[in-house]
């Protein structure tokens, strides 16, 4: 089937639009003084691409010589990426209002988004790598955007860790290419089934290292707390919600397409990794005084939760593939990814509001838990949104976080990994401790200052995230269906 230009436009219209917009904005940025316009431009572009993504035809198959594909899986993730970018842009409208370099922020953000979307669509390791790097490079710069000391430290760690991981991943890809003679994921998978050797294993591990870095799985997570804490908060939101999910989609594609072939019980090794990840994330998060860092560790824990999906698929595959179980597991993982994207973005943006508030009052440690004292009265909307996001993160119904965890618990039980499900449950309960502590500060402690005017952009962003979180929580049907069809794509 040959595709015309119109088809390309309809399939990759969103990417094209965003890339074009980003380039255009660079140009405009050179010639205009009033850069506040940029935010609205990118807002409009993202809204438009949201519709383009939703409107894309998912039946056309692959494009660009079989390197990219538009299907339920890719569109699922693209929706997440665009929506997260949209929310971050809303927050940035307030954050970088009147800032002279704000055009660069939006451009980087759009490029990063495009990179992620490319990863979501790619079915070839070359495009995958390119998309991955595009997103990474943009976010390296974003992490350092405010040029404060801790931004730079964060960016430096992020950059070095990220580039090492990329290099490892590339090395792994090169080995895979050498072993299978192709760069197409499907063909790599087919070849792996035939010849499975130690070299394949090594290759896979290097690839895992690359994705594990983005996903922030133990032991590849170590950059995450530092970078999340040190970056500008809305960038952190984007990293946690967007960039991290890119790691997952890449891992889904490579690990499943290429690794479903592995017949032995590799999933147990992964299960241990998952168990360590979530436990470490939670127990260390308890100790954090900085809410941002706490959320960062919570993000690590979430990486562990979501990665249960891999384990479930592995378990479902251990004795001949049980499609229903595997699909269930994948769909559950996708639902949790979806939920996590929005609640984490929202939570970080709320943290940004608090940081903004604390800084404007000239306090030290703007992210410290103490700043949240009495937030319920100082900034009621922020506090309420934060409340819902935290409940969602802890898996209290009826929220997106609950639906995701709920399904994931179910699929873990379904695949017979009862110990993992119980550990997951205990971890989830443990995580309540630090989420509730923030809530206690917000609603129980006496406020340390007067009521503040909450910046409109932030409020818009948080409310948008809130609506999505509750919407998924109360009417999950459409999302669940979407997740199931996305999962079906991966499992053919």
């Amino acid at each position: 089937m040959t595709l015309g230009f119109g088809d390309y436009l309809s399939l990759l219209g969103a990417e094209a639009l965003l890339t074009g917009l980003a380039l255009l904005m660079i140009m405009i940025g050179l010639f205009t003084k009033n850069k506040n316009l940029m935010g609205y431009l990118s807002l409009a572009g993202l809204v438009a691409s949201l519709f383009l993504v939703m409107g894309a035809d998912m039946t056309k198959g692959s494009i660009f010589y079989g390197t990219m594909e538009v299907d339920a899986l890719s569109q699922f993730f693209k929706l997440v990426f665009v929506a997260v970018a949209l929310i971050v842009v809303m927050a940035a409208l307030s954050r970088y209002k009147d800032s002279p370099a704000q055009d660069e922020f939006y451009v980087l953000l759009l490029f990063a988004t495009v990179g992620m979307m490319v990863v979501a669509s790619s079915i070839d390791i070359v495009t995958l790598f390119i998309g991955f790097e595009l997103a990474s490079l943009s976010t390296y710069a974003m992490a350092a955007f405010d040029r404060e000391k801790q931004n730079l430290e964060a960016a430096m760690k992020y950059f070095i860790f990220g580039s090492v991981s990329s290099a490892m991943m590339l090395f792994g890809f090169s080995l895979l290419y050498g072993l299978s003679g192709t760069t197409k994921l499907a063909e790599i998978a087919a070849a792996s089934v035939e010849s499975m050797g130690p070299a394949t294993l090594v290759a896979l591990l290097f690839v895992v290292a690359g994705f594990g870095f983005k996903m922030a799985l133990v032991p590849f997570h170590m950059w995450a707390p530092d970078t999340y804490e040190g970056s500008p908060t809305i960038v952190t939101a984007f990293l946690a919600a967007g960039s991290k999910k890119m790691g997952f989609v890449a891992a889904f594609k490579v690990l499943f397409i290429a690794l479903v072939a592995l017949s032995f019980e590799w999933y147990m090794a992964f299960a241990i990794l998952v168990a360590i990840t979530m436990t470490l994330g939670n127990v260390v998060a308890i100790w954090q005084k900085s809410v941002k860092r706490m959320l960062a560790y919570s993000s690590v824990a979430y990486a562990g939760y979501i990665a249960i999906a891999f384990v479930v698929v592995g378990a479902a595959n251990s004795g001949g593939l049980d499609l229903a179980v595997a699909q269930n597991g994948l769909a559950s993982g996708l639902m949790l990814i979806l939920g996590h994207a929005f609640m984490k973005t929202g939570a970080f943006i709320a943290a940004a509001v608090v940081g903004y508030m604390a800084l404007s009052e000239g306090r030290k440690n703007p992210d410290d838990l103490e700043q949240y004292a009495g937030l319920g009265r100082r900034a009621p909307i922020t506090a309420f949104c934060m409340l819902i996001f935290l409940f969602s993160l802890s898996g209290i119904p009826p929220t997106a976080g609950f639906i995701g965890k709920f399904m994931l618990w179910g699929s873990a039980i379904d695949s017979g990994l009862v110990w993992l499900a119980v550990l997951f449950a205990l971890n989830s309960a443990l995580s309540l401790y630090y989420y509730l502590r923030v809530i206690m500060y917000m609603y129980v402690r006496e406020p340390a200052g007067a009521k503040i005017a909450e910046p409109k952009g932030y409020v818009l962003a948080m409310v948008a995230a809130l609506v999505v979180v509750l919407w998924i929580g109360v009417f999950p049907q459409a999302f669940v269906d979407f997740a199931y069809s996305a999962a079906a794509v991966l499992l053919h």
Partner: protein
Amino acid sequence: MYQDYAYLIVGLPILAFVLTIFLGWHLPKGGGFITVLATFAGFILSFGIFKEIYPNDEIVHQSMHWFASFNAGILIDPLAIVMLLMVTFVCTMIHTYALGYMEGDPGMARYFAEAGLFTAAMLGLVFSDNLLQLFIFWELVGLCSYLLIGFWYRKPSAASAAKKAFLVTRVGDVMFLAGIILLYTNMVKLNLVLPEGAYLLQFQTIYDSLTLIPPDQLTWIAVLLFGGAVGKSGQFPLHVWLPDAMEGPTTVSAMIHAATMVTAGVYLVARMFPLFYAAPNGLMIVAYVGAFTALFAATMGLVMFDIKRVLAYSTVSQLGYMMAGLGVGAAMGAFSVGVSMFHLIGHSFFKALLFLCAGSVIHAVGTNDMREMGGVLKHMKWTGLTMLAGSLTLAGFPLTTGFFSKDEIIVTAYEHGAMGFGWLPYVFAIVAALLTAIYTFRLWFLTFDGEARSDYHKHESPWIMLGPLVILALFALFMGMPTQENFYHYVGNNFEHYGVDFDELAVIGGHHVEHAAHVHEPFIIKILPIIIGVGGIIIAALFYSRWKRFDPGMVTSEGDPLRKILLKRYYQNEIYTLWFAEKVVYGIALVSNMIDLKIIDGTVNKISAISVGFGGSLRKIQTGVIQNYLTAVVLGLAVLLILIQLASMGVAI
């Protein structure tokens, strides 16, 4: 016609309770007359019913479904009607007396409300047609007792005594409840096909199924039910609350702790007499406990100086007689129910009288301590004389009511011995009779005779108090002789209404007597109670009256261990309160608390502390140095490689 309104016997006092508790504050005398009227109306109703059923030897039975397999109902048979008459009559007297006695107390309305509630509960207890309902009212009278003992709740000793009374009787109630449950379960197991309107715990059903229940179960049930009676009727070893209960107003002591409530235990045993009769060893336990209590309490009555306490121990002792009277029924069959109930009724009159007289004295003199009285007769003629009447009958002076009733119990106890069921009850009873006469007149002489030993107020009580005294005194002296024989038969034949076959039950109970011939008592046995009663009075007179010949000091001295042990009341307080309640029970409670905090909650906290502490050490890995992070990645990769390699070789991880 009266029987259609039987429910009003309970209903009216409840109405009085509601009215006085809400409106009493605004009425003169706290609305006490409402309670008096309600109780008196109850008496009229009871009397009317009595007149209706007595001639034809009928019973009244009404019943309705309550919940599950339980019912609520009214049963008025000979046993119940005599109690109803007594309770309504005595309560009317006492309530009337209280109108004067409680005059001026700010809590008067509360008093009459609670008294009304008590009356209702007591009457409800009496005419219950099933064991559960009896238990419910049983508990309610306990509640009223608690409330009324603690009537002067500002007094710590009153509050404490109230609590003690409730708790100690509660121990008995717990056994009672266990007995009911045991009985109920045994009846359920029989899978009886009940006729329409019949329920498992109805007395009729119970009587009918006694022969079907295993005898060992019967014994357990009997013991447990008797446990309830022991608590309520102040039998050894649960008698300790009764003397303390004297902290309440004297009218309360008269009403609850002498005339009515404390006899509920006796009533229960009488009501369940067929069960006790059928239970092997059931009656024997009753007989021994009763007789021992009679003696045991009498010994303490000898040395007390608090006028009410003497009467309280006397009550315990007399209740022991009643129990013993029932217990010796092994020899006499259902006749002993009549005997015991007769003593119960008579005792109610004269003990109420004695308490009310004591109250009158206390009211006037302003102290309870007999050592500060003396010579009161000069100032309170009516009180003194009525109290003399009461004392005579309590001491068993010939031809008074108490003489007939107690004499009959002693004689029955003799037959119990003579027929080979054991002599001990008789011995205890006869010794206790002597002591009774002594302490009774010790009390009377110390109070009314001799010279005033302190400067007390001297005035006679008003007629609203004296009136009931006189009426009760007449009954106490003269009720016995004319009614005695009829009473024995009327009440003794109570169970014929239910078709209880005592011979059959006796076989189960193991005290079947082949030749049920009447044992003939020797003449000396017949007159011994008279000798003892009169002798006791004389002994008391020799020690304590104006014709004093001996000094108590000649018999006993300060250092006398026997006297000490009696004054210390056999160290009951030390054992029950200080040791058992405060050391054992509270000790267990403290240990439980320790376990809860340290072990159970400690484990929970430990788990959380461990997980949190784990995080505390784990976070140190995050050194902030990028090279260390990279090292972790490389190490992690190596470990993963090994793990997966192992897995691929089929090693189970």
